């Protein structure tokens, strides 16, 4: 990370504010990524700007258009004197100035020509972003990338509407960073190290100071053991039982000579944590689904590292883990003297390290059985989506620590979305019949203006004088579209009017907004942190509303 080639700036300083979000490993993933943009419109260059600044490895613009006057008006990365020049070239040059550590390339060809002449062209990219593609080219490109499992982000800004669609066959996430996650404490099923440590502490013989500084985790452990004795070895299950346990804990507070309870904060903390800390340790359903996935049950020499790790995790759970995931190994802050806090911390850390070692051994055994244990040179630029030989300890560690948060995204393909028999009719119908203000109506309208384009070779309302006469035409297009889908509803007239008024214009503030949203999804995908949007996102700039649906 300390390398200073390119810009000559220390990347730790330049990227300081973002390293605090996705870490060094996230940054390395970004720096290894190759991003392709199809069509350098305002939205396209805004997206690229927002991934070039944080430092992707390289970008390539595919665009056969020449710069027109209207492009210059809304695109920051085209200049007035670039009118008539290649849009791909001008944008590449100006965007390249944003970050000397990023390499820029361009191809002055339309995506249609490129798909015709060299369909494999796109297979070297980590992610492809396509702006304003017509249906035929879009489906063709979607098919090629689907085959290679390269994520495709389709984006469009139309008047005050922003649209994003992610199409990826399979995207796996190790660090999903859930908004809320319970601590992994195992109070219901204490591991031997925890038992030994807690049992070694005798509350009766402690000094006053020690008593009041015994971590609540230990207190809770001890009172749960007490409880189990009289409850068939079960932990408190419901609200009532938990309240009874709380009462037991409160009674454990020491009293002074006059029989008044001392102020022992650790006991207060133990009571407060009964609900959140005393939970049944279980395998989350998302992780169970991964275990049941054919990719996990049938690993082979071509399997992605993620699936090999999943399989090792699965095998661990059913052997060393005694039904549990590897211990996360962290404990929350609590009132305690630092000695015992650190001891307790080590008890958890050591168990986590033991679990990690067991999983590492399983990973290596699996790799060996697949003939993949030799460290194979892997081009970091393509490692994201391809199988690889060696798996580093850090990777395994991160995987173990996030075992409960593993996620899998499988999108529906564009072919399915556009296919007459596979279109998500029910979802669309629900939005069509819902009250006014539904963002998804604009998805239907976008499909409608595409139909309009197919018929008239232009978008509705392109000139102000066209707005009124184009309304009935667009309405007819929508009727046909809905008919094809087998839906009987209609789109309200004022929506159609609004759409015609937009005249396919690209408003810069919408482009800026979507530039941020799409770039953020690109970063999620490249760093494999956070769960990306699955699969369609629509933004209504006038109402400041947005919706995510699966189409």
């Amino acid at each position, binding site marked *: 990370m300390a390398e200073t080639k390119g810009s*000559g700036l*220390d990347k730790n*300083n*330049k990227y300081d*504010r*973002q390293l*605090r*979000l996705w870490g*060094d490993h996230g940054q390395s993933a970004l720096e290894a990524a190759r991003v392709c943009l199809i069509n350098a419109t305002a939205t396209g260059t805004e997206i690229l700007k*927002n991934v070039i*600044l*944080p430092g992707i490895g390289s970008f390539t613009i595919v665009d056969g258009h020449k710069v027109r006057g*209207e492009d210059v*008006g*809304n695109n*920051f990365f085209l*200049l007035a004197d670039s009118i008539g020049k290649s849009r791909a070239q001008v944008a590449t040059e100006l965007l390249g*100035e944003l970050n*000397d550590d990023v390499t820029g390339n361009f191809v002055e060809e339309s995506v249609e020509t490129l798909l015709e002449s060299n369909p494999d062209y796109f297979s070297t990219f980590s992610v492809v972003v396509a702006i304003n593609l017509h249906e035929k080219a879009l489906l063709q490109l979607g098919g090629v990338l689907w085959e290679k499992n390269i994520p495709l982000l389709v984006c469009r800004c139309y008047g*005050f509407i922003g649209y994003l669609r992610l199409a990826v066959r399979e995207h796996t996430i190790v*660090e999903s*960073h859930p*908004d*809320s*996650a319970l601590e992994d404490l195992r109070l219901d099923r204490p591991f031997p190290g925890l038992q030994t440590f807690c049992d070694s502490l005798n509350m009766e013989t402690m000094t006053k*100071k020690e008593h*009041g500084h015994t971590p609540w985790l230990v207190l809770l452990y001890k009172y749960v053991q007490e409880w189990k004795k009289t409850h068939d070895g079960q932990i408190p299950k419901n609200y009532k039982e938990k309240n009874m346990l709380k009462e037991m804990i409160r009674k454990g507070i020491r009293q002074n000579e006059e029989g008044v309870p001392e*102020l022992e*904060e650790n006991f207060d903390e133990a009571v407060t944590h009964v609900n*959140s800390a005393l939970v049944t340790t279980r395998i989350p359903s998302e992780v169970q689904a991964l275990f049941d996935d054919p990719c996990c049950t049938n690993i082979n020499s071509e399997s992605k590292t993620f699936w090999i790790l999943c399989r090792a995790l699965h095998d661990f759970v059913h052997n060393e883990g005694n039904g549990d995931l590897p211990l996360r190994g962290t404990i929350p802050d609590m009132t305690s003297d*630092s*000695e015992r806090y650190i001891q307790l911390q080590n008890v958890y850390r050591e168990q986590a390290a033991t679990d990690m070692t067991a999983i590492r051994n399983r990973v290596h055994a699996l790799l060996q059985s697949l003939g993949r244990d030799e460290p194979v040179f892997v081009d970091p630029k393509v490692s994201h989506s391809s199988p690889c030989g060696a798996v580093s300890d850090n990777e395994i560690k991160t995987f173990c620590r996030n075992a409960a948060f593993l996620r899998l995204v499988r999108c529906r393909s564009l072919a399915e979305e556009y296919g007459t028999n596979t279109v998500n009719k029910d979802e669309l119908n629900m939005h069509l019949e819902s*009250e006014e203000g539904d963002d998804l109506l604009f998805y239907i309208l976008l499909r409608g203006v595409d139909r309009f384009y197919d018929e008239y070779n232009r978008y509705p309302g392109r000139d102000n004088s066209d707005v009124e006469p184009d309304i009935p035409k667009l309405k007819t297009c929508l009727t046909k579209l809905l008919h094809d889908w087998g839906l009987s509803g209609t789109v309200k007239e004022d929506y159609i009017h609004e759409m015609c008024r*937009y*005249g396919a*214009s*690209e*408003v*810069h*503030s*919408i*482009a*800026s*907004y*979507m*530039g*941020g949203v799409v*770039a*953020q999804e690109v*970063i999620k995908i490249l760093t494999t942190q956070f*769960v990306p*949007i699955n699969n369609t*996102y629509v933004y209504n*700039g006038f*109402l*400041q*509303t*947005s*919706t*995510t649906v699966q189409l």
Partner: protein
Amino acid sequence: MAATLKGVLQGSLADNVKNSKILVVGAGGIGCEVLKDLVLTGFKTIEVIDLDTIDVSNLNRQFLFRKEHVKKSKSQVARESVLKFNPDVDIKAYHDSVMSPDYDVNFFKQFTLVLNALDNRAARNHVNRMCLAADIPLVESGTAGYLGQVTVIKKGLTECYECQPKPPQKTFPGCTIRNTPSEPIHCVVWAKHLFNQLFGEDDPDQDVSPDTEDPELTAEAGQSALQSEAKTDEIGGIERKSTRVWAMNTGYDPEKLFNKLFRDDIKYLLSMETLWKKRRPPQPLNMTQLPSDTDGNSSAIRDQRQWSVKECANVFSDCLGQLKKELATQGDGGMLVWDKDDETALDFVASVANIRAHIFGIAMKTRFDIKSMAGNIIPAIATTNAIIAGLIIMEAIKILSGKIKSCKTVYLNRVPNDRNRLLVPCTLDPPNPKCYVCAPKPEVTVVVNCTRFKVGALQDKVLKSYLGMVAPDVEIDDGKGTIIISSEEGETEENNDKFLSDFGIRNGTRLKCDDFLQVYSLVVTIAHVEKLEEEKEFEVVGDLSELQPQEEQQQAANGSKPHNGGDKADEKEEEDDLMLIEEEEFEEEQQRMEEETRTTRKRKASSETEPTTKRSKTAEAQAAAGDNDVIEIS
């Protein structure tokens, strides 16, 4: 300007956009994006003001700046960069503080709209008041990591920025910092104070020596401890001399400084036995007898590896030498300013904080983490700024099309919420009639002990720091118009050291406070009490009726809390000697954003259209999420 946009911006709106004059306050992350968006939306006349210069760590998002611009004025470089791409726009840049008297209400009145792109509460408060005074609509915004927020403020129509009380700024009691640290942050704050004591501006509130007036010590115990330390050698003498002078006299000798700070002062603390009855006592360190290095992972990056105590001591020595040289270049009476982006200054704080943490048995931290804590760094990325800027422009467009009533407060979530919404728009609330800023006749009650509270503290701590005034004038409403504080220099300075009671101020006295620049008048009613709970110096309440129950409640809380250090209960109890952490706006901003995103979804769920059952379920899930709902910093 794209011709097609005419259609989108209906009728006269395109002309309104073209003819309007916009003030952008701040040319940082949001500011850069906003400037670009304004120009490309057709705005022609823009003014931008920012006090800051460009730093390397800005370059990952503030796209109008390049590495060759580092240390130059943000507003001026931003202007030049935008003009390079769009020469036919009129942009005026001010490299200045928006709180300067040059930008008075007439300055604000020339604009159609003001767009805030700020990063601190003081400036936000000030611009809020200026826009209220000038009656100009204000679009307010902020980002923190993946989160962001935009809202619209219009006098008489909406809540102003100060209508809802903000969470208090995070502070630590002086004695926690000086005597009984229990968290890494306490050591970091102490280390920054030490930097200032040795090289920076002398601030008596940043004393780093043991505090004999710790309320935990009975008067007796404090006294005896003091006597046991009645040595008058050069080390003991620094209690009375300034740390700076003493350190200079030793030539910033690393060993002398180390042993004074980490051995002798700690021994002195140990002599205050009361403090350690319920705590782990600290362990003094001698520079020549440090625990030997346990070489762990020396291959890791320096920034993210845990330094050993020995390493810390070496870094401490090296930094002293370098900082001493730097100080010398400043000439007589010169001083250094602590800056998180200055390598040596950060090294110094990282090493000192870790040594102190080690002594007190507190977890040591990496330099990377300490930078975060010491600089109150808030993560910042291009994507969130781009999103928020887009939202700001959409609100601006609505205002210009006369649809201010359809403007919204919009919250940006990290990921779509459980109702699949990335954005949460909420209708704007009407002004709070009890707001001490935007109410027609703003009033507050200040609770103090008039015989112990000085006029200077009223000016600095109450009126400026707490109530956000820039240059207050204060007149006693006694029929004689006695002026106790004047914003004119040299008129009332001699009053600063006098007590309120010296001017006949007592329970029920009304003070007429004015800020000429902010065109802001506030009546402060004094409520006299002998002693405020929690050792506070003063308390500000909206009206007196709020005072009584609060008092009872706090007494109850006091009675039930032990006094043994280390947690929030203590922070509340010992606010006698508050220490502000600089730049904490960032952290506070982050918390506020987290809070608001969460609570608003609950509080304002009614502005959306989902069924109630679903809503309360969401609220429950959020409550269960509890404290875990913080930004991930990995």
